[in-house]
């Protein structure tokens, strides 16, 4: 049985489903026989999610990964809310991927991405809490010989009001675990929440401020060795030849591992491994990609735009007839927008520690957005059955999509450690390797054509997008009729009521790997919302009023746009010397809008003073974490506006480190005012939505300030000096 599993290809385990909202559910499903976990002494597992200690401490198991977004705490809040335990006694731990597959995927999905942690597991984690609560109450009823319905649970204590008797959860857990879970579970109305919905402190912060070893790169094991890696700098290429004599003679060096498209040096410290790596004389087979650069990639995208009969992501009304009819379209406006490849640049580089143990098992420690996918990757790379592998999920020093899919770094870590059986080996990529071996946000080119009527109203809109497809590259069967929904996000689902619309997509995948970069498709927000701004100005109308006229009264884009504009004081004079721009865009289950206040100095220096960002996620589980995510999205969205880009020359990435792939610093950080405006009735995400309107709001504000329309990013390629300055 196990051989078949390990020889099956990765895609056989990959379950893909696209939801109506355009979200992508992506998870690994490893078919393994059901088994119960060995019980831990002294503590009781009431159910898979909840472990209760005799002294009432509650440990909540979290299946999703924590990469800074706060899901660890938010999911614990949802469980604790229904459990009615004492929040002060709650801690959380990551669920074990090995146990997950042995127990028939008992924790649902371990995949962490698409802002889905809360929104796609809220139902089952709340039920886990409610079910455990009912079992604890049931145990108290049995102990007292009274109907459970007469008992109340609150803050970890079950009371029997008629007699005043009390029992603590710690005293009831062992009996509760033996009670069959209830069939009918009623979840609490969010308006009655006591723990969820509150800005409780994050559970992971105390360790993080102490510098306790919590990240993948911090793993330390007895006798552990360290590895530094060099991968073929030209994408798609492989290793041809390595001369390792000098490196092997260097201090602390233990081994040189050669594999497919990489070579790694193993030594007794990472620095020694990395020093020796520099001494390797490596010959690469560039697979014929060594001549590709920015110009070839631009040409590839441009060719895509010139093709007719492309797959359509949206077709409403009759676009051709509308443009041909001067009675309908009085004015035509066309524009082309573009943006470059971008790197995730997590602060913690890719890392994986692996240890082939004497008993034939394998242990892996890594910072992954999907523990189950990491387990499968380790199985494929080691040739061991998944049951013999444990993956220890570490805190992530950032993820942003890079550590979700694929798990390339895990496969490498395992292959490297395989060369040193019995010895744990920690692989860490240098920053340069990390920068040059990403799964980049696709570069893209979009051509827009709008038809306005006599009154300036938008009646016909055509958008043609050319960009590499993430799905075609990573999960081809998730493509639908030639469309990758991440490539047309915001265009195919544009909320504005425009009678005639057509959105076409040209899949153009070059040799540069592409992947899920925070809010995949978010560059379309820049294109669409800046182009709409162009139309508002062409029509001589206020950009807010122009948009509102195209949004139905109950449209949630409208509601969040209004709330955000109001909070920003849209329509009132901005601070002296500053101008405002706005944008709205939905995605990842939520609705988001932003107003940016910027100034541009006479010499062309841009300053973003303030960004007011609004999010409607339906429900809010931890308002403080949601605000932190909004702040995070503002700065993550600002880097690509200001200066970030990944350039390709000679088939490889030009940028190497933070000196040429810059991240904004505190001095460049605008003030962020977050508007949380949950309208209830749905569960939206927070990790990504707020990034969607950031770039267009800033660029629209630049137009308001300078009269210059920025149609390609980053701004470092543009001269913002005002025409009136010398």
């Amino acid at each position: 049985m196990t051989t078949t599993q390990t020889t099956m290809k990765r895609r056989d385990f990959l379950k893909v489903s696209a939801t109506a909202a355009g979200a992508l559910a992506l998870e690994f499903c490893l078919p393994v026989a059901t088994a119960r976990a060995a019980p831990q002494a002294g503590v009781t597992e009431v159910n898979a999610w909840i472990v209760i200690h005799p002294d009432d401490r509650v440990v909540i198991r979290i299946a999703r990964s924590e990469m800074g977004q706060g899901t660890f705490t938010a999911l614990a809040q949802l469980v604790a809310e229904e459990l009615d335990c004492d929040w002060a006694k709650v801690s959380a731990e990551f669920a074990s991927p090995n146990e997950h597959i042995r127990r028939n995927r008992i924790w649902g999905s371990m995949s962490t991405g698409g802002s889905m942690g809360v929104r796609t597991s809220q139902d089952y984690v709340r039920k886990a809490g409610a079910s455990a609560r009912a079992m604890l109450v049931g145990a108290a009823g049995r102990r007292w010989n009274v109907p459970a319905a007469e008992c109340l649970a609150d803050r970890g204590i079950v009371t029997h009001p008629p007699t005043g008797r009390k029992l603590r959860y710690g005293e009831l857990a062992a009996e509760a675990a033996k009670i069959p879970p209830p069939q009918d579970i009623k979840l609490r109305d969010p308006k009655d929440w006591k723990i969820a919905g509150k800005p409780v402190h994050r559970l992971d912060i105390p360790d993080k401020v102490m510098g306790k070893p919590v990240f993948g790169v911090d793993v330390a094991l007895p006798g552990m060795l360290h590895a530094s890696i060099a991968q073929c700098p030209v994408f798609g290429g492989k290793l041809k030849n390595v001369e390792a004599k000098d490196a092997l003679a260097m201090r602390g060096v233990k081994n040189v591992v050669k594999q497919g498209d990489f070579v790694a040096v193993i030594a007794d410290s990472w620095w020694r491994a990395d020093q020796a790596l520099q001494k390797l004389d490596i010959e690469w087979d560039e697979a014929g990609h060594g001549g590709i650069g920015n110009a070839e990639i631009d040409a590839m995208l441009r060719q895509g735009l010139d093709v007719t009969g492309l797959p359509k992501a949206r077709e409403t009304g009759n676009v051709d007839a509308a443009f041909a009819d001067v009675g309908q379209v009085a004015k035509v406006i066309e524009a082309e927008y573009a943006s470059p490849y971008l790197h995730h640049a997590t602060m913690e580089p890719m890392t994986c520690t692996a240890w082939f143990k004497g008993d034939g098992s394998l242990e892996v420690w890594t910072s992954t957005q999907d523990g189950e996918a990491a387990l499968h990757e380790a199985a494929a790379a080691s040739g061991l059955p998944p049951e013999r592998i444990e993956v220890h999920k570490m805190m992530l020093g950032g993820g942003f999509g890079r550590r979700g899919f694929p798990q390339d770094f895990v496969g490498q870590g395992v292959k490297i450690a395989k060369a040193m059986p019995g010895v744990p080996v920690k692989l860490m990529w240098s920053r340069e390797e990390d920068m040059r071996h990403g799964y980049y946000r696709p570069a893209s080119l979009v051509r827009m054509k709008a038809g306005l009527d006599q009154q300036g109203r938008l009646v016909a809109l055509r958008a043609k997008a050319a960009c590499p497809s993430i799905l075609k590259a990573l999960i081809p069967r998730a493509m639908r009729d030639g469309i990758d929904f991440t490539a047309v996000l915001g265009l195919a689902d544009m909320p504005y009521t425009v009678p005639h619309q057509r959105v076409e997509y040209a899949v153009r995948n070059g040799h540069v790997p592409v992947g899920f970069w925070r809010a995949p498709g978010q560059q379309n927000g820049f294109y669409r919302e800046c182009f709409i701004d162009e139309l508002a100005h062409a029509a001589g109308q206020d950009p807010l009023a122009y948009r509102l006229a195209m949004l139905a009264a109950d449209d949630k884009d409208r509601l969040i746009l209004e709330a955000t504009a109001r909070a920003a004081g849209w329509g009132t004079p901005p601070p002296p010397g500053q101008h405002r721009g706005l944008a709205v865009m939905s995605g990842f289950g939520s609705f988001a809008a932003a107003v940016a206040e910027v100034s541009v100095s006479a010499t062309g220096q841009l300053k973003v003073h303030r960004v007011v960002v609004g999010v409607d996620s339906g429900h809010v589980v931890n308002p403080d974490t949601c605000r932190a995510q909004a702040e995070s999205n503002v700065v993550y969205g600002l880097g690509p506006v200001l200066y970030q880009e990944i350039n390709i020359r000679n088939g490889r990435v030009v940028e190497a480190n933070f000196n040429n792939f810059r991240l904004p610093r505190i001095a460049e950080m605008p003030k962020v005012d977050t508007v949380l405006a949950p309208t209830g009735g749905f569960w939206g995400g927070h990790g990504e939505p707020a990034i969607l309107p950031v770039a267009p709001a800033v660029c629209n504000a630049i137009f308001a300030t300078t009269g210059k329309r920025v149609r390609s990013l980053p701004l470092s390629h543009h001269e913002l000096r005002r025409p009136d300055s010398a």
Partner: protein
Amino acid sequence: MMNFNVNGKAYQVDVEPEMPLLWVLRDHLGLTGAKYGCGISACGSCTVLVDGAAVRACGVRAGELAGKKIVTIEGLGQDGLHRIQQAWIDHQVPQCGYCQTGLIMSVAALLAKHPKPTDADIDRDITNLCRCGTYPRVRAAIHALAGD
């Protein structure tokens, strides 16, 4: 053998003088609070105090540290939480947390020099990179520490 004084303790380690302090700390002394982010003194994740000044541990060599007092995040709050760490909890600053130990050490050096830093002081001295964008909370926490 080289001698180091880290967090008030004397260590003897057999490392080459060219090895950056960061790797002495992380791989030879087991002090992993200082993080590697870039290795070229560009990100500040590896910031520690050397004789009270904020120093990027990836950019200083083992051989340059004779007789110097090194303090890392592990030794910042000798008896429990340092007030900066407490302020970081109060303001819920960290997200992923990776850059935070370096940030906290940079702030310790800033506050030692300027107990009441202005925004301009913060902009000048706090040049650490945080990919998660915790900057607004970092600024708020610093002002709170200054009693503003």
